[in-house]
């Protein structure tokens, strides 16, 4: 039993954090909803993402990857959440993982890995899972050229982003078919489960990073903002809120770590079960933490200018992607708590 990050993983976390902070610095939420910067990264930023190997590292060697573990990907995803990075790294990584599981051609995967071809995953209209037909939405699709619905063997062009609560990610409708991918083969159940577990584990990490960033900011605020002659963080009622938020964040971290470890270490179905549990828990907790954070910030937290709503929005959107707590708990209720 060894439940911690290795020294190498901690170093990777730090380097991810640095680049994530840089990417975040190139995106601005503007002065209001009509003034938000585009979530698609500029060429220079996307090159740095590709150079960092983020898009390639999880893929198999023959597809241009480095076969990184899901734990490493979780480390990356947490940093992306922590800095509310707008660049669609998770969308690209998840789309590539899905295509690889369908046996997509190495050429395409290598292009994705190198950042020269930009794909987004196609999800069902309710965002709860991978699309298996048309009428779906491309998720985390800022700057993406197309999205593939593997079951139809078709890649689709993407329309303009639809309004989305999360200002840091784009969701776009699928448009015209642009390409047919004939070589695809449906993965077996084991692989499909593992792919879903992988996607869920990244969303959990994104939620974890988001809530930790929000909590850190609230703690800074609570230490410095003075009301009634004391820092607000000295008031017991505020301490209670922040303590609860810390508990939820740490428990979510525990869930995140286990789910990520399970992706590569346990049978697919077990990994998926763990990922569902983690996604349900982190979804509920992230919203609660971000709401508490806004409460601690007080009035300033309700302004566009303050970052608190950016975290809350990202939390709600990441909660919806690949299913919120109600979605996963309904599955768990049906499989574990249904009568004879």
């Amino acid at each position, binding site marked *: 039993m060894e439940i911690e990050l290795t020294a190498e993983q901690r170093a990777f976390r730090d380097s991810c954090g640095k680049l994530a902070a840089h990417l975040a610095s190139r995106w601005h939420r503007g*002065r*209001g*909803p*009509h003034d938000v910067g585009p979530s698609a990264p500029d060429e220079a930023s996307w090159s740095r993402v590709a150079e960092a190997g983020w898009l390639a590292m999880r893929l198999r060697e023959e597809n241009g990857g480095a076969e990184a573990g899901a734990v490493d990907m979780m480390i990356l995803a947490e940093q992306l959440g922590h800095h509310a990075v707008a660049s669609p790294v998770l969308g690209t990584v998840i789309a590539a993982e899905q295509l690889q599981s369908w046996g997509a051609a190495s050429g395409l995967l290598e292009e994705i890995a190198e950042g020269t071809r930009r794909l987004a995953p196609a999800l069902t*209209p*309710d*965002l*709860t899972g991978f699309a298996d037909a048309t009428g779906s*939405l491309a998720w985390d699709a800022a700057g993406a050229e197309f999205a593939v619905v593997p079951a139809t063997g078709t890649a689709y062009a993407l329309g303009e982003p*639809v*309004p*989305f*609560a*999360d200002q840091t990610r784009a*969701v776009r409708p699928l448009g015209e078919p642009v390409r047919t991918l004939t070589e695809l083969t449906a993965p077996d159940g084991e692989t499909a489960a593992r792919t879903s577990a992988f996607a869920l584990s990244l969303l959990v990490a994104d939620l974890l990073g988001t809530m930790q960033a929000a909590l850190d900011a609230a703690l800074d605020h609570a230490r410095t903002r*003075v*009301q*009634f*002659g004391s820092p607000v963080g000295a*008031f*017991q*009622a*505020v301490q209670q809120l922040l303590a609860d938020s810390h508990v939820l964040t740490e428990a979510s971290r525990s869930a995140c770590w286990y789910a990520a470890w399970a992706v590569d270490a346990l049978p697919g179905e077990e990994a998926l079960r763990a990922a569902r549990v983690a996604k349900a828990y982190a979804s509920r907790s992230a919203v609660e933490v971000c*709401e508490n954070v*806004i*409460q601690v910030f*007080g*009035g300033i*937290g*309700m*302004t*566009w*200018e*303050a970052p*608190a*709503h950016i975290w*809350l*929005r990202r939390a*709600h*959107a990441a909660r*919806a992607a690949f299913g*919120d707590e*109600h979605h996963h708990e*309904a599955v768990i209720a049906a499989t574990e708590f249904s009568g004879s």
Partner: protein
Amino acid sequence: MDYSDDPEVAEFRAGLRAWLRDHLDEHRDATGYESAESVERTLRWHRALAAAGYVGLSLPAAYGGHGLPDLYEAVLNDELATAGAPPPPPIGHIAHAVADFAGEDLKTRVLPGLLGCTEVWCQGFSEPGAGSDLASLTTTAAPDGDRFVVDGQKIWTSGAMWSRWCLLLARTERDQPRHRGLSMLVVDMESPGVDRREIVLASGSREFAEVFFDGVEVPAANLVGERGQGWRIAMHMLSYERGPADMGWVGRLGRVLAAARDDVRSGRLPADEPLRRRLAAASVDLRVLQWHVARSLAGRDPGGSAGSVDKLLTTRIEQNLHHVVGDLAGASFVLGDPAPYGDYLWSRAQSIYGGTQQIQRQIVAQRVLGLPRG
């Protein structure tokens, strides 16, 4: 015990409903002080209300009011909210401060414009350094002969971008401690040295602003009441800001729930049994809130700390309601029309504005329940 309207109230309510049937449709787009255009529409709505006799219900007839009991203001708010009408002009507490404390001259000068809705007013209380802690205000109004010179900054000033007048709470007495040094002034927002900066809320709302005062001259004749009386007047105003009981919140929340019910009944939004049950629980909350508010209005003196009880109850119910309707919406909570998400964000603000939830609970604990101060 009788929850039915008295005959006069029933008559007032019926008249108002009839008026709304005839006039509401042309004013549904009066969406508040968000842009020059929406201000225009909003003022048209306010003036229509004023012309029909629905502004200043509880104010003295001598200054353009109608001399009715407070209850009528609540009925007005309730009916407007229930009908989905834009809210009435948010001037009741300002009007009461002026009517109850200002001298004859000032009253005659400003009340007609206020109650006739020909001029927009705002209220300058909060400051960046004093959120829930009004007594620590630092904006000064230095007495200087027959005028005051105002320096400082206000925040969360609703409608300030479009206001002609500001009812300002500022420090006039340098040698008095905390709240004893405050006075209330009517400031012409077109005076030199007034600067305004829009605050955009997380929901996208542009109703609020910061206001900066840099050597702004205010005639001494614009002092409301006496010097040093500002805190007392502010508390008097807040006593009219009872919120839940008389601001039509029950009607507003009722419309949110009714829309959800329609969506479920018509099948527009699928609701499984757990969601239906949560909607039912929210409807339980709302009916109880309605009964509670009726009891508050009928039974209690204005300005009791029981207002904090009502606020806490409403906040709890409103925040839960928005969680439920958000979950009912599913992915469309975050996708598509941003209005429901904006409404949800607003529900989070309810536990912050007008005294945070923590402060409200402390007020209840100490002033209502008599627990010792920490």
